[in-house]
């Protein structure tokens, strides 16, 4: 069974390879975690973003949780806010879409129009 001593070991081992993440100045991923977001499945989506950005060594990405933005029927909603303030709002985000957003949007710089709230909400 894991203990905090094991966490200490992991920390010491990983410190060499883990780069400290910048707390600002990079891209921000905001996951909607209000009642509506949680009920629609935002929690595994949040974890998927952490897993995927970490797996791809994206050091300049901060993942945050935000409350309800008033579009409850389209949750889980994820906003990608770039360094320059450009905001892309993705809706009904699943775990596999989260991976796609990390790979296409964050790494390749291609916005995924088909998942955007503005495309889906008519």
């Amino acid at each position, binding site marked *: 069974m894991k203990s*905090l001593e094991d966490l200490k070991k992991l*920390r010491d081992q*990983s410190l060499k390879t883990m780069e400290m993440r910048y707390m600002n100045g990079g891209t921000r991923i905001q996951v909607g*975690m209000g*009642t509506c977001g949680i*009920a629609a499945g935002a*929690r595994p989506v949040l974890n998927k973003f*952490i*897993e995927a950005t970490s797996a791809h060594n994206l050091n300049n990405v901060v993942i945050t949780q935000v409350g*309800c933005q008033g579009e409850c029927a389209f949750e889980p909603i994820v906003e990608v806010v770039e360094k320059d303030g450009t905001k892309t709002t993705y809706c009904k985000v699943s775990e596999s879409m989260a991976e796609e957003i990390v790979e296409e949007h964050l790494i390749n710089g291609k916005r995924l129009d088909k998942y955007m709230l503005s495309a889906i909400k008519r």
Partner: protein
Amino acid sequence: MNDLSLYILDLVENSINAHASMIEVTVREDQNKNLLELTIRDNGMGMDEATSAKALDPFYTTRTTRRVGLGLPFIKMATEEALGTFRLESSPGVGTVLTAGFPADHINTPPLGDLAATAYAISIHQEVKGFKYRHVVGQQAFEYDLDQVKSVLDGVSLTEGKVMKFILEYIQENIDSIRGGTP
């Protein structure tokens, strides 16, 4: 909402919005009393009696983005459906304590759900300062203390992939252990 862990994640947002610097979540399983009890205690701004009463009304909310507030009504409804108990005690400037009790064997009592994922999501919330999660089964208890975890990590982020995996497993294994290996 279909499990206890999701109710917890949702209700903790109320504590965060009340600017709590300490949030303590306890899940207690007591076979002898046929009880599953959830307690959420915070030291946030608290509510006066009138606000406490209104908070249970689905058409009351302090937010402005929509006109309903369903967190507390949902958990209260869940206890009622399982013939359980619900208590909300709050005082301005002191904090709020929410207690939801479920008869363990009632068919409508929600399953525990992924408590580790909930504790982790609370831990990485940017506005959460102090957070403790306690899981009690009979005489045995496991306590997760975010402060302790952060001091062990000493600057390494909780949102590193490896750290996330570790924390999720650490909490889950400890809960499973005091529950006697039954996931």
